[in-house]
């Protein structure tokens, strides 16, 4: 991975309101990067889903929003980190239709369909880190 990080900000996910706050920041940065309106809606919605996951499953964590550049292309990378219960079967969750709490089970699988790359690292009892990347279309 040879991306340059152009900017980085870390936001807490400590209250339900932070779902709205974090996605607003992602939206603002997406428009700063001049992502088109569909890509902006995609990253904003994915952020909403993933921030809510952190809040619902772990009751707290952080979101790190980065503007990145790789060669000629620029994009956003957002990382959601929590110290919650972790996910036992990541593959199954990513396939979708799987839900433990009050969600549609679309949080991870749906978000993955909205971005260019989404990775999940999770250890049961330790926590979960979800990272997505969305590149700006030329």
């Amino acid at each position: 991975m040879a991306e340059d990080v152009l900017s980085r900000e870390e936001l807490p996910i400590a209250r339900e309101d932070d779902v709205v706050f974090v996605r607003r920041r992602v939206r603002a940065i997406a428009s700063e990067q001049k992502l088109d309106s569909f890509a902006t809606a995609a990253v904003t919605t994915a952020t909403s889903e993933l921030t809510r996951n952190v809040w619902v499953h772990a009751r707290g964590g952080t979101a790190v929003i980065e503007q990145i550049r790789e060669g000629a292309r620029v994009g956003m990378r957002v990382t959601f980190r929590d110290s919650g219960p972790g996910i036992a079967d990541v593959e199954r969750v990513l396939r979708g239709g799987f839900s433990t709490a009050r969600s549609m089970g679309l949080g991870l699988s749906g978000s993955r369909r909205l971005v260019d790359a989404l990775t999940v690292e999770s250890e049961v009892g330790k926590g979960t880190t979800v990272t997505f990347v969305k590149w700006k279309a030329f």
Partner: protein
Amino acid sequence: MSAIPILRLGHVLLVNVNVELDDEIATRMQNDVLLAIERWEAEGLVIDISGLEVVDSYVARILAETGQMTKLMGTRCVVCGMRPEVAATLTRMGYQMSGVMTALNLADGLSLLGYKLERV
């Protein structure tokens, strides 16, 4: 935290969602709408979401559920004005808002319920 106003237009209730919905506001809106339907014996409900730039799966589920709940009560519900970006995002996520009538805009939503808006 402010509630979303519910307007009466004849026998139809009109909800214009023009604030960003967090979980609490969305749930409260759902309850308020159901109570208003009972109170005013509304024949229809139109939820205008043209002001929403983001509809995640939680809010989409609240809207779909509201449609199902109003149907159980014997009233029809139309969700209108969904923005192109929202429609594309929900569909790409794999979300189906099944069971809810949708309309392009408020006028079409009202006419689906049998009310015509005409130029005077």
